């Protein structure tokens, strides 16, 4: 890959964090839950370009996310990195990209990420099993809902790289 896709990725990571964190974008939250745009981006990159790209992006963006969040260091990094690796194992060559598969991948990945975070929450922090209903499930549904249009946009952004990869 050339430098350009890395720049695109960096810009998208920062843009996702701004949208998720700035009060002006509160309109995107439904019932107090915001979609995890950064996570969708990581799964997209892993799904399109493989585990290595996914886990490295997950690690770097997760550290950035941890730094600006109130989370203990690693709390948001580890699930993103792990899912970046796992999602890369089920890449485009194995699962064809369409609305249903994209939604399903993001839904299952979000659920796994939520469960890993819950386990970490028990270790680092105070956690409650009620977060499965209050955060994990709504976030997974929300992510799955907005993933297809986002994947479409990302496909346009990374068009040349996808062509180079043979997709």
């Amino acid at each position, binding site marked *: 890959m050339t430098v350009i896709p890395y720049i695109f990725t960096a810009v998208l990571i920062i843009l996702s964090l701004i949208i998720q964190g700035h009060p002006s974008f509160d309109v995107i939250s439904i019932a*107090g839950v915001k979609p995890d745009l950064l996570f969708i981006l990581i799964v997209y990159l892993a799904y399109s370009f493989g585990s290595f790209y996914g886990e490295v992006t997950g690690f770097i963006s997760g550290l950035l996310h941890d730094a600006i*969040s109130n989370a203990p260091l690693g709390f948001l990094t580890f699930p993103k990195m792990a899912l970046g690796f796992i999602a890369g194992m089920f890449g485009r060559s194995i699962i064809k990209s369409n609305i249903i598969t994209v939604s399903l991948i993001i839904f299952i990945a979000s659920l796994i990420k939520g469960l890993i975070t819950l386990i970490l929450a028990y270790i680092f922090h*105070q956690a409650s099993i009620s977060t499965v209903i209050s955060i994990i499930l709504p976030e997974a549904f929300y992510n799955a809902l907005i993933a297809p249009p986002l994947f479409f946009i990302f496909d346009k952004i990374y068009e040349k790289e996808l062509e180079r990869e043979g997709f």
Partner: protein
Amino acid sequence: MGRLWAGFTELNEVREELRKTREKLQQYESIAEELNEIRYENDHLRKILNLSERIGYESIPASIIAQDPDNWFRTLIINRGKSDGVMVNMPVVAYKEDDKAVVGKVVEVRGSISRILPIISSDIRVGIKLGEGREPGLLYGASSNANVCVIDYISRAVPVKFNEPVITSGQGGVFPAGLSIGTVIKSEVLESSAYQRIIVKPVIDFNHLEEVFIIKKEPDKELLQIFGEVE
């Protein structure tokens, strides 16, 4: 004879005036009693709401510039930091119309920004007093995405009314006593617990919160050391 008759007439007039005066006196007495009652009620309500006591601390106005980008945390970022005199564990309040109410406390301070842990976060613990009975309890955020709080450690035997005010108790070394927090919207009695679970709606609407005030009250370090919040 004429004078005697005049004396009788005057006597009647004086009697009539006396009767009217007694009537007026009774009216005034009842008004005075009513006023005393109103004054007592007013003092009592002031005591509950602590409106009589103005908090004697300076405050730093600040704007919310960001919030936690993750659904698991509820912190808010403000545009005031160490350079403005903000310290960790300083209480943060905001106004809704004319009511001053608790927003949360400062948990992290950097050069020109700080992080606030709001009362709707499940990580916070605030000592409170509930209603007219001033029952002590512990308040924290209900869940990671709800804008309500929960009060724990209120005995099941305590009668809790809808809309009862909840104020800070001043215990804990962070919040001054008597700051308004919210009102009771629900009380749940669980069979398995000796305490009831009280749901509180905060005065502050956290969805539309933009401006806050950091109270320049240095935290009680001795108390915080006891609670293990300061190394």
